[in-house]
């Protein structure tokens, strides 16, 4: 795939905009990373691997996902025409499965018998546990204790699928701590184990690999919109945690300058508050979790605790390619607060009859703001990264409704 931001001047792989990305990970894992890199670059051009991947995406994951014209929202908002890319309709209920199928196939080709992964909201953990069950592999999931508490349903789903879930009690007990724990586990046991990275983060080749497997989102949406409207969208909107559904939603449009790309971060209680996860808007350059990127950190480089109502966006960093797209001005990143996201959760449910993930509702909330400012002949494609069943109980609680789980 052609790529505007991939550096041409440096020989180091995986450096974006001459700055972000790279490999910053303990030596113990480097040989393994080299193997993953080699396998990925060999297999992605291998027709048998492609056939296997394609078959699983179509026949197991339920791709292609629908590009749905949200007529009610479009009419209600009175501006741009709104299409929803329905990743929530994938098997396991989120975009995460696209990436997991790809990486698990890679793991299989590398002869691995065991998959490990971090998870925030639990969607990536569920997807990994699902594929491990399908492939007959062992599976262990690391999840911050805060998140096992607010996403109990997904914890049970993972266990049902045969995975072992480890609640992580170090640090702030959320997604970043789960990534620390999974990296540590991988460092102590890599021979038979593959770390299925859940977002477009981490050391090279993970950001590139996750983008590759998620780019199916934009490849499809481009074709689908062409079939329906015979044009490119004017804007693509997706929520950004680590940035996998967003980079997948953007990938095929990066070289189409007329398409505006908007990543929506979780602003928590407000972009300028202490309780936020708006990494690109508030973060500074740093080196963490294997990559140089933007992070919410203090002036000494200690990583800050972050906050969002959404467990899947509660991450102090962002994938290096997003940091690069922001730096180059190719994509724009905006913040949506908890309140706005919860309002969008209710809005899309009532307008379209879709209960969408609270992560995705950050993107929906932005669409609600921007669509009315655009003209009726313009088109927005908004990615619904996941379905919201997992969030119903906690949103009810947020609204002060007492329901028996």
């Amino acid at each position, binding site marked *: 795939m052609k790529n505007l931001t991939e550096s041409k001047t440096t020989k180091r792989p995986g450096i974006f905009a001459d700055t972000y990305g790279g490999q910053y990970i303990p030596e113990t894992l480097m*040989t393994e990373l080299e193997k993953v890199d080699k396998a990925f670059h060999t297999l992605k051009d291998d027709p048998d691997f492609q056939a296997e991947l394609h078959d699983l995406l179509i026949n197991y994951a339920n791709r292609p996902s629908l590009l749905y014209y949200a007529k009610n929202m479009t009419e209600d908002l009175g501006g741009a025409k709104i299409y929803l890319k329905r990743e929530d309709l994938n098997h396991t209920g989120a975009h995460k499965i696209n990436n997991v199928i790809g990486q698990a196939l890679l793991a299989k080709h590398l002869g691995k018998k065991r998959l490990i992964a971090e998870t925030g909201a639990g969607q990536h953990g569920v997807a990994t546990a699902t594929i491990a069950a399908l492939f007959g592999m062992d599976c262990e999931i690391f999840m911050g204790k805060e998140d096992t508490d607010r996403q109990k349903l997904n914890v049970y789903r993972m266990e049902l699928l045969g995975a072992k879930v480890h609640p992580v009690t170090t640090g702030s007990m959320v997604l970043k701590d789960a990534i620390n724990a999974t990296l540590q586990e991988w460092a102590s046991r890599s021979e038979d184990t593959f770390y299925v990275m859940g977002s477009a983060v981490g050391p090279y080749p993970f950001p590139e690999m996750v983008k590759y497997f998620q780019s199916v989102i934009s490849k499809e949406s481009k074709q689908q919109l062409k079939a329906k409207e015979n044009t490119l969208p004017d804007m693509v909107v997706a929520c950004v945690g680590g940035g996998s559904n967003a980079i997948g939603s953007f990938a095929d449009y990066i070289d189409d300058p007329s398409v505006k790309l908007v990543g929506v971060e979780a602003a928590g209680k407000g972009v300028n508050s202490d309780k936020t996860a708006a990494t690109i808007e508030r973060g500074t350059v740093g080196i*963490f979790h294997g990559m140089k990127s933007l992070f919410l950190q203090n002036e000494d*480089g200690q990583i800050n605790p972050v906050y969002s109502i959404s467990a899947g966006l509660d991450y102090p960093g962002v994938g290096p390619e997003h940091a690069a797209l922001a730096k180059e001005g190719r994509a724009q990143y905006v913040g949506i607060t908890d309140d706005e996201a919860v309002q969008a959760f209710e809005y899309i449910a009532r307008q379209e009859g879709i209960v969408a993930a609270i992560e995705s509702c950050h993107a929906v909330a932005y669409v609600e703001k921007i669509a009315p400012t655009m003209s009726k002949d313009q088109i927005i494609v908004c990615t619904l990264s996941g379905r919201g069943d997992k969030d119903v109980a906690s949103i009810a609680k947020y609204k002060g409704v007492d329901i028996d789980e």
Partner: protein
Amino acid sequence: MSNLSEIFKNHKAFIPFVVADDPDFDTTVANIIALAEGGADIVEIGIPFSDPIADGGVIQAADLRAFDAGVRTKTVFEIVEAARKQTNVPIVFLTYLNIVFKYGYDAFCQKCQELGVSGLVIPDMPYESREDIVPTADKYDIDIIPLIAPTSGHRVEKIAKAASGFIYVVSSLGITGERNEFFNGLKDLVAEIKSYTDVPTAIGFGVHTPKQAKAMAGIADGVIIGSAIVDIVAKQKQNAPQAIEKYTQSIRAAVDEAQTEEAHV
């Protein structure tokens, strides 16, 4: 390049580790002095990081105690400055790259030179990323101490050939913390490193008893002990310096035995 590697000439080195500002400023200074007086050849000082991905529970807990004490990067420099009034023991820092990056590679290395800190161990900076900092470190005669792991395989050669100061040989897979078993190919790994470079080797990760220290010093040119000392600090708190000095003496004696036995072979 510093003169760190000189320390290992016909001498098995003992390199203990403490976390800066654990549990407080004065105790850390006293611990550094105790380590020097107990017979440490190089003292490794950990600059706490919020997310120490190469460290096990003992060192994570020490980092938390240091944060409770309000540690900043500049506090760590002040601790070394205070210790320098009483000891000339060679010092290296262990920290994660973000801490150095945020301080500024140049400012950080300059500060190290000022304080007589000879090297940096950065567990999340592999060979591929060393060019980020090595030119700056060279400018101030600071060694970037590379790590070589049991999984390094074909990477050993390039890492060894680029090394200066000493090479940190990781005893086993995973993270820091006391262990009773090590990778059983350590002898061969050290021999392979030796075939590429004269830069000395020190084995660390999990070593805690004098017996293990002697065995490791028998294999390599030195031994690094972290969690066992940090554990003493955890238990003894402000009374740690005395216990640390005693422990250091016991390891010193074990490492010296390895030296004597090797001289006789």
